[in-house]
């Protein structure tokens, strides 16, 4: 197979401008199959714009996006679940739109996916009766229901408290290890990035460029207090601070 088809998704020289503002400048990024890539950057550095390009929701002003994985699954900071459906029906709708025609099959698969995110008993519950963490887990199940090999996540746990976020990290890693989708996980939380990612990419701000990247070889399950992880987090933190300071000076 040629290298062009092995990447789950690839940006080549992608540039994005909004009016006069150059938001992304010549991004070359390749996401390998089964990779867990964390995209790190200060607020407003163009992380979400980059994710929109990968998702195909937006087109680059110049450069190319090539996706080998079909329609990627998307998860947002807000759960974006449909409030007129139960948790289970939300997942079922994603299955239906992805082409599962048989109703009973959809039902069984939705129940299985909710079990996978440890929400086996939430099938018939309305969205508004679930806590924030539970909603995000339903959203994760819904994203998985699309059956895509590429999962794009835009700060999905940013609005949750630390303990809940910790639980969701475990759930997400559990799912990733079982199904091995390629994940692009946008965050501004360095500890989150090194805890989850097999690769961490640091994006600079204004314009967004890839400043540096790290491979994280530590196997899962990772402990939050692991010395190597903490050391890496400190190093990334130093780089990120430099990035921010450089802009403060400009």
């Amino acid at each position, binding site marked *: 197979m040629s290298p062009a088809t092995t990447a789950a998704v690839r940006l080549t020289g992608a540039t994005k401008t909004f009016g006069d503002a150059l938001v992304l400048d010549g991004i070359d990024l390749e996401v390998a199959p089964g990779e867990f890539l964390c995209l790190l950057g200060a607020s407003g550095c163009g992380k979400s714009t980059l994710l929109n390009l990968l998702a195909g929701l937006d087109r680059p002003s110049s450069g190319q996006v090539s996706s080998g994985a079909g329609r990627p699954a998307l998860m947002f900071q807000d759960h974006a679940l449909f409030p007129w459906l139960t948790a289970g029906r939300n997942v079922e709708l994603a299955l239906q739109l992805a082409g599962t025609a048989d109703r009973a099959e959809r039902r069984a698969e939705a129940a299985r996916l909710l079990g996978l995110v*440890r929400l086996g008993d939430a099938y018939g519950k309305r969205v508004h009766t679930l806590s924030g963490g539970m909603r995000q887990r339903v959203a994760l199940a819904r994203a998985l229901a699309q059956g895509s090999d590429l999962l794009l996540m835009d700060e999905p746990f940013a609005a949750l408290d630390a303990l809940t976020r910790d639980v969701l990290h475990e759930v997400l890693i559990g799912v990733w290890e079982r199904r091995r989708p390629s994940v692009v996980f946008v965050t501004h939380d360095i500890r989150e990035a090194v805890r989850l990612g097999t690769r961490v990419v640091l994006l600079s701000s204004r314009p967004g460029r890839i400043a540096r990247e790290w491979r994280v070889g530590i196997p899962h399950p990772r402990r939050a207090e692991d010395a190597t992880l903490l050391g890496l987090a400190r190093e990334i933190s130093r780089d990120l601070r430099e990035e921010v300071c450089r802009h403060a000076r400009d």
Partner: protein
Amino acid sequence: MPVTDLSPVRGEDVPPDFSSGADVLDSPTAPAVPTLFRRSVKRATAPVLAAVFVLSVWQLAALSGLFPRLPSPVAVLDELAKLLRDGILLPALGQSLGRAVTGFAAAVLLGVPLGLLVYRYGAVRTVLTPVLAAFQSLPAAALVPLAVVAFGESERSVYSVVLLGAVPSLSMGVVGALDQVPVLLRRAGRAMGATGLRAYRHVLVPAALPGLIATLRQGWTFGWRALMTAELITSTPLPGVGRILDTGKQEDSFALVMASVALILAIGVLVEAMVFRPVEKRVLYHRGLLV
């Protein structure tokens, strides 16, 4: 006892279960559902109190002698009984409700697709929005002479007034309801592959449902008011409730006028209470928008 004993000094030995996240306690608990009897009593209390209040004020005003011409509630009730005995009330009610339902159905069949076109196509929106907004602001009373000149004193002119009264409001309402669907839900739908007609079916229409119900209710109200105006001013071969009101005016009978106004009011209240409010409540309840 060793100093390094780390067993808890206070609290439970079993730690709380955080396996589903520390915000489990955030999930709202469902309130206890009261019995059917209690619910019915609770639901009926407010309207009954309101009716008792209005009737008392009315009765007192009639007794006070301050308004010598004002008939008492009993006199108005008598008038209604007489209309019923004379075989006027029920046919008129049937006529008016029949026209209202038919006119409303036709207005929905025209107004909703028109609203969808305005929502979907920018050019249509640019051209039609000011037109619809202008028609929406036009009182039905101004449309009646126009319809009569165009179609004569006929059912056609009554229906055209109802349609002109209801369609613009329905179309504009549909556009407004769809415009208010959160961008995030559209994006989520698009990301899942709900595009084109599937976006309407699975995302836009269900998301806009509360607004769409409000639109139907407003369309009904506009149509009903337009119909009463039309029945009052034109003289179609088959008289409706509006005609009774006109007769009361011709005969200078305060009681008859009051009776027909009460009738028109009652129909409005009943349709609202028996059709629109239950549907709206159900939709809002399922979305957690109603306590």
